[in-house]
């Protein structure tokens, strides 16, 4: 197990290095940091561009530029945005916002997926299975932003009318400026009120697909010989399903969840957009691509890739822990 882990970690580092190179090459080819000066009227003199190119090191060899960027990123320096603010700091605060949004949502989604998947498998082709299956298919067919808008429109309005005050917020991750003077319960309850709807939206949409995985994995397991053996030994049905069945049926879901959560750290892009959260997704779309800012896009891509690769690693290791055949082969 130890060597298996070490081998996987080394492989991951190489994937990251290759990924960072690919990302840098693509961005260097498609972003021009000077683009926004070309359209200025009157057009700045050539010497202005020459100075900027000199300052930003754009005339250097491609590999030199890559090396400079990479060594900077590894020491926590992602360069500056087009407005002259450090990217690293912003990435940090954005990550916290995104993390807050996805953490609770993922926990809820996993628990729901397991429960609904197991119910669907154990009660296959009974009424409850059909109802759950239909609901899940409906959720899978929903575009994220449409569902989120539905929540904003009805759930938020309904709940707030019911209590006669604003409990659920539909915009932002906290009331702007509140953090400047409030703290403790006041601040956290405000954040909680902002958190509910994005969490519900993310959790329900993620859980839907996962529950199908869980259901078919559970069906496979329920039909296996060792389940029959466990029953033959005299174990109760409940005990065979939970201890012998579920443990094995969790293996496929583990991988799927780990891979998905890894991609989410790059931002639940659409959910953030609908609820106007200033997280990683918005950072990429508005500050990065919107401002044509190469350092923001590069920083985002690298951080996002780190999480994807990290969670790939987690998926591999968890898989090996849950299924010993993998690490022995």
């Amino acid at each position, binding site marked *: 197990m130890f060597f298996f882990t070490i081998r996987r970690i080394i492989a991951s580092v190489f994937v990251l290095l290759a990924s960072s190179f690919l990302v840098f090459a693509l961005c260097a080819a498609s972003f021009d940091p000077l683009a926004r000066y070309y359209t200025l009227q009157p057009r700045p003199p050539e010497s202005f561009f020459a100075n900027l190119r000199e300052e930003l090191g754009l005339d250097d060899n491609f590999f030199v530029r890559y090396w400079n960027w990479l060594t900077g990123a590894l020491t926590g320096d992602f360069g500056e945005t087009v407005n002259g603010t450090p990217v690293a700091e912003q990435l940090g605060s954005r990550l916290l916002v995104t993390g807050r949004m996805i953490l609770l949502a993922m926990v809820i989604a996993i628990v729901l997926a397991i429960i609904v998947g197991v119910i669907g498998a154990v009660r296959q082709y009974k009424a409850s299975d059909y109802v759950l299956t239909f609901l899940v298919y409906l959720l899978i067919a929903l*575009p*994220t932003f449409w569902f989120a808008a539905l929540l904003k429109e009805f759930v938020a309005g309904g709940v707030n009318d019911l209590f006669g005050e604003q409990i659920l917020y539909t915009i932002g991750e906290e009331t702007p400026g509140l953090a400047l003077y409030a703290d403790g319960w006041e601040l956290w309850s405000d954040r909680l009120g902002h958190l509910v709807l994005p969490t519900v939206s993310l959790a329900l949409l993620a859980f839907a697909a996962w529950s199908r995985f869980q259901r078919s994995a559970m069906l496979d397991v329920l039909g296996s010989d060792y389940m029959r053996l466990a029953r033959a030994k005299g174990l109760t049905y409940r005990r065979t399903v939970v201890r012998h069945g579920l443990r094995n049926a969790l293996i496929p879901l583990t991988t799927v969840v780990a891979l998905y959560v890894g991609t989410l750290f790059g931002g639940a892009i659409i959910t953030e957009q609908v609820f106007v959260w200033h997280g990683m997704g918005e950072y990429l779309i508005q500050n990065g691509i919107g401002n044509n800012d190469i350092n923001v896009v590069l920083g985002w891509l690298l951080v996002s*890739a780190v999480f994807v690769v990290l969670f790939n690693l987690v998926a591999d290791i968890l898989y090996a822990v849950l299924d010993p055949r993998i690490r022995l082969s």
Partner: protein
Amino acid sequence: MVATETSTGPAVPGVPSSPEGGGVEREFTVKARSQRQQIVRRFLHDKVGMTGLAIFVLMLGFGFLGPVIQGVDYADQNVGAQSVPPGTADYLFGSDEIGRDLLAGLMQGVQRSLFIVLLFVVIALPIGLLVGALAGYFGRWVDSVLMRLVDLILTVPLLVVLIVVASNFPGSRTPLGVGIILGLFGWLDLARIVRSQFLSLREKEYVEAAHAMGASSRRIIFKHLIPNALGSLIVWTTLAAAVAIILEASLTYLGFGVNGANQTSLGRLVSDGVQAASTRPWLFYFPGLTLIIIVLSINLIGDGIRDAFDPSNRRVRA
């Protein structure tokens, strides 16, 4: 050659009767079916899949026959009929803020979205199939190189890849452009699926036999491996088609999809509708529901096809 396929009665025409004179008595007869016939039969008996297919055919009719019957051009802006609520004779589904008929828009949107899906499949399917087939069949360094490349691209979420590419090609804000971009980057998971299928299929005896008889790699891939991987290919195609419709809507919502004057798609209508959710709710509900129905029907078809190819997951017939 004697007819070999069916025997529905005790006496088989064309087969000489036995010397004893009496035909062979049979308790029951079994109609021989090819594997393909069995799969089609299983699908036709699958209620879920057939429901999906029926809905999908209805939507096809809605998108392609509807405009002919209705005879209204979505691009026509009627200044006198802006934001008409649904239910009036002229505007059954209402009209938008510049006086365009929503029903005509929905029909056109369905058309364009299905066009995008078609483009996506036509482009992504061959690429994914080729990459996966090469990696799975030849293994070794071909496999390593191709799959590491796929792994690398997948370190970036697909939606972001699409956004970055689309932002570099402002000309792609049409159904044509979105379909092409989706196709060019939507084959990565297919390549993985095909690869893993080929890895196991190439070890089969019939592949070895084909090899021994001197069949070329190309012949083995096209005549033996692809037909046996057909099930996963078709299932992938349906599920990916459903995802493509949602991806187009998402891209459009974020401003990197179908955009600009006289460009429609379901995603465009749904995205516009979200802005009008509280003021003109019909612009929010009808496009959203139309998209959900199409995606749902495609997913149901996919489910039916998967069961038809792999009946092991189904309830055993009592």
